């Protein structure tokens, strides 16, 4: 028999990112947009599921970011899940485990849980169609002491039923995983698949889709909206068809947010232009989170230009920040930096001193940049200059 369903996971609704916090005095609230979009994506999942003739939707854990999510997030999430219009099976993951006082027991969820939604609170198989069952392996605590999946599949017999296992945890050996996360026994799952006790293992916890092979019976579908810079591209879901022993999974992009790294070598003004072009290349900067890491050398003047560019782009991107551990651009004063500055002798000698110190003192570079700005902005007879203020504000948000 053939079963078609949608496999998604790690919605982590209610997630916040500190780098999305509003800037002091800023108008934009990227966090609010981020939160709303993650819920909105659930509606799109429903559209895809319906379009693709799915019978049901399984969410393989971490539906909510924490057990402490707000009433508003739960309410909006419930409405979005209701809009799917198909049976939805929610698996409690490590973020929303069945621990005491968990979200699943709180009134704010139980009062609103739509009728099409089933929380997989136990490992009892649920019939989803003739000869097809969904079997959940919910997490009962944040850090289970043992593999939550192995005992579930041990009880299952290959009796011809098409069983979809819904589990949450890390298969060993995959890159980019957290050592603290729950490991699941890959061998046991493989054996269950091989024996036919289960036909497909819909896994969650890993935010990156894996593997590429569309016929793999053990799969992480990845998160529906990316959450980290390791998550390439936009979030997606898998429409899975299980037909006898054959599995076919097709990814569908649903996410709108992008976590992007911009990594460039800088040396010339052209490089700055190229950087500007790359930043302009993002189709939806308000939903794009950029971590840039620039390398190489720029002069003080070039750096001033770069900073002005970044300051300008920061206004449009959801977040545009240097990578804390990768960005290592070096600013080096060159002859050109002092050109055009009509400095009296003593000021010129001060500039020279700063230039010499620049190699070992970032502050000296900043001081040089400032001198440059003041000298350019303050021709004789003019104490203040609006251009100076602009440069200043650009600097402030670097």
């Amino acid at each position, binding site marked *: 028999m053939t079963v078609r369903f949608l496999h998604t996971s790690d919605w982590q609704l*209610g997630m*916040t*990112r*500190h*780098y*999305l*916090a*509003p*800037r*002091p005095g800023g108008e934009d609230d990227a*966090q609010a947009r981020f939160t709303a979009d993650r819920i909105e994506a659930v509606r799109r999942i429903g559209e895809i599921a319906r379009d693709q003739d799915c019978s049901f939707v399984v969410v393989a854990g971490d539906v909510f970011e*924490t*057990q*402490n*999510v*707000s*009433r508003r997030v739960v309410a909006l999430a419930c409405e979005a899940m209701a809009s799917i219009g198909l049976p939805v099976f929610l698996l409690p993951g490590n973020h929303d485990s069945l*621990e*005491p*006082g968990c979200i699943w027991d709180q009134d704010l969820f139980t009062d609103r849980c739509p009728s099409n939604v089933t929380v997989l609170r136990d490992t009892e198989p649920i019939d989803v169609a003739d000869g097809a069952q969904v079997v959940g392996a919910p997490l009962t*605590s944040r850090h289970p002491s043992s593999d939550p999946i192995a005992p579930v599949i041990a009880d299952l017999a290959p009796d011809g039923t098409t069983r979809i296992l819904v589990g949450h945890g890390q298969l060993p050996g995959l890159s980019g995983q957290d050592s603290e996360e729950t490991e699941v026994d890959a061998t046991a799952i493989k054996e269950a698949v091989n024996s036919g006790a289960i036909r497909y293992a819909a896994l969650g916890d890993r935010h990156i889709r894996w593997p590429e092979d569309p016929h793999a019976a053990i799969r992480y579908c990845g998160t529906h909206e990316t959450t980290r810079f390791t998550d390439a591209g936009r979030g997606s879901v898998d429409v899975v068809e299980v037909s006898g022993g054959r599995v076919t999974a097709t990814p569908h992009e649903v996410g709108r947010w992008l976590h992007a790294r911009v990594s460039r070598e800088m040396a010339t003004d052209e490089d700055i232009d190229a950087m500007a072009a790359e930043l302009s290349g993002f189709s939806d900067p308000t939903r794009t989170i950029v971590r840039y890491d620039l390398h190489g050398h720029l002069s003080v003047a070039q750096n001033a230009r770069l900073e002005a560019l970044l300051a300008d782009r920061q206004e449009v991107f959801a977040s545009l*920040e240097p990578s804390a551990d990768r960005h290592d651009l070096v600013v080096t004063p060159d002859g050109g930096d002092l050109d055009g500055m*009509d*400095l*009296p*002798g*003593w*000021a010129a*000698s*001060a500039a020279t*001193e*700063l230039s010499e110190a620049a190699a070992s*003192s*970032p*502050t*000296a570079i*900043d*001081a*040089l*940049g*400032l*001198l440059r700005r*003041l*000298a350019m*902005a*303050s021709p*004789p*007879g*003019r*104490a203040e200059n609006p251009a100076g203020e602009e440069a*200043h504000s650009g*600097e*402030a*948000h*670097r």
Partner: protein
Amino acid sequence: MRLHRIHVENFKSVEDRTLELPDTGLVIAEGLNEVGKTSMVEALDMLLDPKFKATSKRAEVKAAQPYGTDLPVIVEAEFTVGGVRLVHSKRFLAQPAARLEFLSGPRAGDVLTDERATDTMAEIWQGTDQTLWRALRHMQSDSLEALSLKSSTALTSALDRASRIEDAGPGDHRADDTTLLEAAEKEFAKYWTGTGKPGKQLKDATTALERSEAELAVARRDLDEVDTVVTELQTAEEDLRAQRRDVGRLEKESAADATALKALEGLEQQVTEARRTERDAQQRLDTAASARQARRQAVEEVDTARQQVSETKAAAEKAHDAAGDVEEEYREADERWDACEKARLDARRAWQEARATVSGLRDHDRLARLDAIIGRLSGVRIELREAEGRLEGNLASAKGLKAAEKASARLAAARTKLEVASPRMRIERLDDDAPALAVDGRPIEDEGDGGAVDRVVDRPAVVEVADAWRITVTPASDVDKLAHDVERAERELTQALEPMGAATLEAARELLAARGRDESLATGLRERLERELADVDEWEDDSQERSVAGLTELRARVAARVGDAAGDDADADDTGAEAGSGDVGDAGLTVGQAEEAAARCEAAHDEAELAEKAARAAREAVGERRSAAREADSAAASTLTAARGQAERLAARLEEARGIATDEDLDARVETEDTAHWEAEGELEKVSGELAEHSPDEVREAARASQARFEKASDRLGRTGTRWAGLDGQLRGMDRSGRQDRFDDMEGRVHRLRIEVTALTKRADAARLLRDTLVRHRDEERRRYLEPFTRQIETLGRGVFGADLAVRVDDSLTVTQRQLGGKWLAWDQLSTGAKEQLGLVVRLATARLVSPEDGVPVILDDALVYSDRVRCGRMLKEVSSGSQANQVVVFTSAPERYDAVDAVHVDFR
């Protein structure tokens, strides 16, 4: 500017004067005070100052016009400015006019007049360093303030050149310097305070970050608190599950143990029941057995009673016989005693009679003796009565005698005194027949001594002689008194003797001696009486009768006794004796004989009495036995009666009992009960055995222990439930989403603030570094810039002040401090002379520094007035050497000061 000539007319006190100056060097313009040295300088100012037009009627102009005249004020000067030699003149007040003539340069030959001349001159003058122009003049009236040469372009450009930092366009960038530094300072001030501490913006941002970080920590703690409660709740839930399992298991165990206990208790109940049954059976058996025993006893009792009756009967008969025997014996004893008693009474009577006889005889004896005594005592008594009678009549006493003797002694003494005191009268008869002579009426007889009368005249004595003569002799008055004393003594003697009935003292003595004798006699008589009476006492001890009266009474009694025996006659001894012998028998018996007879009677009586006593005792003994026999008889009789009664009663009772249950019945019942008891005992043994097999203690302990375990586990479960409920409630009340929101919010804020503070700090540090670097370089440059000026001042000044002179010059090119002898002094602390000297040095140094084309003449108006000669001399040397390249004009009224100086001297008088 180089001055060549000044010409002045009608300027104050100056009528017309021209001062010509060489191009360089020192000019000493000599003149007395008030000759107008200062006026020359003022006039020059008025000429060069564009404010003073020729047409000007300003107060200064008017003031310059010689008082009370209408003369024009004329000033003309020839000088070179910017390489061009000019002649400029102004005529004020009267026909005012101005003129400017170019003597050299591109416009050489041009002559301008009036407005044009003034305006053109103003333009040219503008190019001159006004500051320097003013500074290099030292007028007498000028203050001694430190000079500020900052605005002297000539000096500053000279310093610029000297410091060689700017090769081209010196002076143009000064303004820019300030702008850049100001901008840097302004940038610095955005972030830092004047003292270099973080400014408000930086501080606010840092504080905001710190506050937010603190709030984030709080929010994180709040959130962790939720997790802690969740963890605890999880533990509580696990505990609950485990404890519920425990409780279930323990409840089952406890129930099983309780069932076993119940079975045990059933068995125990059975044992109790069997024990009671056995006890009842035993009781019934005991009852039957005791009934049978009682019957057997009753039968025995009846037999015994009957046996006793027969035995008692025999004893009673025997006792009765014994009583009869004793009765007879008693009668015999009683008779014997009667006889003895009679004999005793007879003997007694006989003995009494014998005694009476003895007694009578004795009384007779005594009466006779008594009479003899009484006879003797009567004689004594008569004698005693006589002695006592005498004593009664004799009133003498030792005391009275003693008083009388004393009175007598006094009388004798009084007489002696009288006799001694009285005159003696001796009448002697001279002739036997002499006429009669009477003394005191008593005729004198021949009285011894040959008829002389010798007398003491103690009272008036009357001597009558033959009735013819009366001679009265009167003693002296004191003799009279003595005579009185004698009389009184005589009276006293008489009075003393009177109570004793004695007339004289001798008589009294006699009386007292007689009294003593009588008293002795009476005493002797009384003793004799006593003795006699004591004799009587010997035979009859009756002390009361120890008197004559008593004796008499006694005699009467004895006599009566005798009389009783022998009749009333108590007069003679014989009768008494006769009477006393009455019962004795033979009269004439002696007392001794009578006493012997009485003794014999007594012995007989004693014998009879003994016999009587024996008989009586015998009788009493038999009497006692008789009483006993009688009692025994009576007792035996009553015992018999009682035994008979008892036997009858027991027999009746036995019969009655047998009527109810026969002996056989009782035996059968014992048999039955014994069997029943045996069975009950068997049953008890059986169930007790069963109970013992169940180990009741263990079962009971097991049940108790499992119940306790169950209860404890239940308690624990209850407590865990409470804990769980508490935690659950706590968790529900924690506002989890609120805490999460706050944490998320704070995390974002902290992120933003960190970025902001980092950027701000970066900018602040940059501003600080830039400003510090700029200031440092500017200061360095300034130091280098000021250095030639300072050096020039010190070089010049050392000639005046000494080799150790040093000065400090500030940015405004003002000397602020001077060092001398290692001691720094501020300008204001300097003495007036020092100020003047240093001021000159500064001026000359400036003049030396500026380029010749920029320079102006140094004009000193009576300078060095405050300076001493030594310093003056040095100064002048310096001035002189300095004037090699400059014009130096000194107006002075004391030219001798400059004698030693190589100078052009101009007489200004």
